[in-house]
């Protein structure tokens, strides 16, 4: 099974996606606590408004991305399994 996909990042650049999980930040929920940045610095960064944005889907494995989402104090990160289309986090 090929787990690699080509997806655009926040800046519109295309990059290889490693693993199955895709992360998204719900901007309205983000308070800039930066736990995601500390856990997965190759996936998340804070923009000039101190809100998390996706730097790249590449660079961290699925478990690290999931941990970053689970550690967000406001549940502002949604994780989707790109193979099944199901939301992995937050639990529905």
């Amino acid at each position, binding site marked *: 099974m090929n787990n690699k996909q080509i997806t655009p990042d926040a800046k519109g650049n295309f990059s290889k996606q490693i693993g199955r999980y895709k992360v998204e930040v719900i901007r309205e929920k983000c*308070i800039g*606590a930066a736990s995601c940045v500390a*856990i997965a610095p190759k996936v998340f960064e804070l923009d000039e408004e101190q809100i998390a944005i996706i730097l790249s889907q590449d660079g961290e494995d699925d478990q690290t991305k*999931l941990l970053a989402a689970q*550690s967000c104090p406001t549940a502002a990160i949604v994780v989707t399994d790109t193979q099944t289309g199901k939301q992995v986090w937050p*639990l529905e």
Partner: protein
Amino acid sequence: MTLTTPHQYKARLADKLIHNAKFEQYNFELVEPNQLKFAAGQYGSFLISDQGHRRSWSICSSPAIDHSLEILIDPAPKGAGTQFLQNLKLGDEVQLLAPLGKFTIDESGAEKALVFVATGAGITPFRSMILDLLQVKKDTRPMILHWGLRYVEEMIWQNEFQELAENFPNFQFHPVISKASQEWSMCRGRVTDCLNVHQLLDHAGYYLCGSEQMIADVIQLLSAKGVAPARIHREKFY
């Protein structure tokens, strides 16, 4: 501050202190790894369910104690995190990710005084900061802690803060009680009332942690008095 990489820790509940109906304090002894280096003001993310749910709690102990950590909660919301902690027995093991967060003291040297403003459990990061600044770093800058509570009976750590104020002349403790009895001789009302009657310290940094309303009110007050936004720091959850 530069964010340090957090690590997964296993820790055991070593002590549980039910101060009153408002505050519960939990002490965890680190098991593996057995040493945690953190900056005062940072927090840990605790795993509270097998499904991966986590809760974040600020560390209230001093960074000088690196083999354990303490957290303080207000159990009133009775959420999943509170229930998780209350169900723990002494010796039970927990998993946490730490250190996290960037609500720490500005290290640029631009702030010539420090003012801490808390309501309720928002005191948590400030206890760690104040212990660290006074006892470990021997920081001699003027510091004031304004801590707002509803009732005198809710007050904890009062002796500790008052002892610090006696031993470190640069530190002042201003508890503020909104529903104080006649006997209460210190500040009454809201923390904004207390801030308003005291003269602002020159070139101070302001650190806020507590209710959204308090933070909004204090920011409005400080802005009206000409404090630059860069001098106002706030923890966005508590």
